[in-house]
């Protein structure tokens, strides 16, 4: 199959016996071997395992077994446990860990549905990153321009899918780490409701906000993979017992009947995101505006909790192996270890308050739209950019629009928008009330149908 083939197309072709899972996996491995050095997407390639798995799937299909994701190759951010590999989470230090004994829960669920994990993906160290630049492994590059950032921290997850190496990847999103690379690489991403998808078998960062989710090149592909990963898992203490709420068959209505508003104030942004948001609002026929109150304080609270919980997690490593960290990460974490407990606890009290304020908005709207990032992909190594007329650091500011949303665990579909006259995509967040992933994805589907949201494999990596 071509590099441009998506999840649905591959699953259909393999499921019907038109092509084998073996040939699909071999093509994906071939593209990884040919292009990964330039892209920096994969850190671990599971050649033998993936081929074995494909052979098994092909045999089972021959015997009449059905798989919703038959033969779909995917990569997982290297904070997901992969049996036999030390879960590095983008770090040098974790390479000394005992190899994982089993795969992470979501890898197991995707593979139970017929998908095939082909490798582990590059990421910012310990997920404390929005750039996709890894201090130890080198950057994951933006396939649309190799001199630009992929965004992070799920950078390799973005690079692999936009570079056509695989049609699907798994990422994590604590403060924006799926939505930022989805914006910069031009992909559809889903950060589900906090408590929806099992985090069992992944290396944590900030347990209060850690989420996992898929990235893909179409809304259908995203929905199919998300459906295969739903379901309760008692091994994740934050998981909520919900019925399986499949979305794949429920998106055809698009945005019809949904009350949609554009977030103003804090989320208005500079000229680039404003122009993009106007295009999105026109395409959806949206004129309503809504103000998310105290968004700046929400970002501040998320920032503090991130520093403190991250520092708690890494304190022993900070004491014993300071010099083995990326200094940009260790310095933030060491500062986090020295913050007053009252700041973090007040931030958690504010979180409850903010959640209640935002829930009131959902009495009047179903979906809130906001940009995913304040800018298109910056250059690799770029440290500052102008935001609101002021030169500010790139690294933390890439997440200013995502951070207040994951702070309270709302589901978000990250949608890649292409504005005429710009060579790079810029993402919009379709934000819904808790457990309404279907609403967020229906808006994504409407934008896809309107032709302004699309996630092509980057030129140079797309098979003709």
């Amino acid at each position, binding site marked *: 199959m071509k590099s441009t083939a998506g999840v649905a197309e591959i699953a259909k072709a393999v499921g019907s016996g038109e092509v084998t899972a073996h040939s699909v996996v071999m093509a994906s491995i071939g593209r990884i071997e040919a292009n990964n050095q330039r892209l920096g997407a994969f850190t671990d390639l599971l050649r033998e395992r993936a081929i074995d798995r494909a052979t098994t799937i092909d045999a089972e299909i021959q015997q009449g077994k059905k798989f919703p994701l038959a033969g779909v190759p995917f990569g997982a951010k290297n904070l997901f446990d992969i049996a036999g590999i030390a879960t590095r989470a983008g770090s040098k230090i974790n390479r000394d860990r005992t190899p994982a004994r089993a795969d992470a829960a979501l890898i197991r669920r995707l593979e139970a549905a017929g998908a095939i994990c082909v490798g582990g993906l590059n990421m910012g160290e310990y997920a404390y990153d929005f750039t996709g630049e890894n201090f130890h492994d080198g950057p994951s590059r933006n396939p649309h321009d190799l001199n630009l950032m992929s965004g992070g921290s799920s950078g390799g997850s973005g690079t692999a899918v936009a570079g056509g190496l695989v049609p699907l990847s798994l990422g994590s999103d604590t403060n924006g780490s799926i939505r930022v690379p989805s914006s910069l690489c031009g992909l559809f991403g889903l950060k589900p409701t906090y408590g929806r998808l099992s985090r069992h078998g992944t290396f944590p960062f900030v347990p209060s906000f850690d989420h996992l989710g898929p990235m893909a090149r179409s809304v259908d592909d995203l929905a199919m993979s998300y459906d295969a990963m739903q379901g309760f898992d008692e091994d994740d203490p934050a998981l909520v017992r919900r019925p399986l709420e499949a979305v794949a068959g429920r998106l055809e209505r698009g945005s019809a009947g949904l009350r949609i508003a554009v977030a103003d104030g804090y989320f208005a942004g500079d000229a680039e995101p404003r122009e993009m948001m106007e295009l999105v609002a026109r395409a959806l026929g949206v004129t309503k505006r809504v103000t998310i109150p105290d968004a700046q304080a929400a970002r501040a609270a998320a920032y503090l909790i991130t520093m403190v919980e991250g520092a708690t997690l890494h304190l022993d490593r900070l004491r014993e192996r300071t010099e083995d960290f990326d200094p940009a990460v260790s310095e933030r974490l060491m500062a986090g270890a020295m913050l007053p407990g009252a700041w973090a606890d007040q931030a958690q009290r*504010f979180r409850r308050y903010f959640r209640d304020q935002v829930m009131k908005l959902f009495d009047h709207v179903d979906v809130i739209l906001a940009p995913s990032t304040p800018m298109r992909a910056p250059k690799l190594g770029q440290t500052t950019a102008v935001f609101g007329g002021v030169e500010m650091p790139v690294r933390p500011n890439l997440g200013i629009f995502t951070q207040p949303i994951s702070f309270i665990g709302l589901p978000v579909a990250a949608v890649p928008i292409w504005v005429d006259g710009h060579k790079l995509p810029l993402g919009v967040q379709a934000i819904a009330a808790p457990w309404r992933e279907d609403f967020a994805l229906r808006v994504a589907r409407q934008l896809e149908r309107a032709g302004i949201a699309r996630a092509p494999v980057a030129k140079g990596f797309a098979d003709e």
Partner: protein
Amino acid sequence: MSVKLPDIDQWIDAMAPVVGLTISAEHRAGVKANLKTAAKMAALLDKVSIKDEVEPAPVYRA
């Protein structure tokens, strides 16, 4: 809570030993910058008035 920007060198000198960290010369400027940012974030949060009855977000289920 009232948050004033403190003397950050004093903050590091007092707190680093408490949590068992050694802040080397080459990391001091980076740690200082991050503490300064954190103090600004705490000041932003401090402007919001929250009622006594509001519980922290995490809930433990026995």
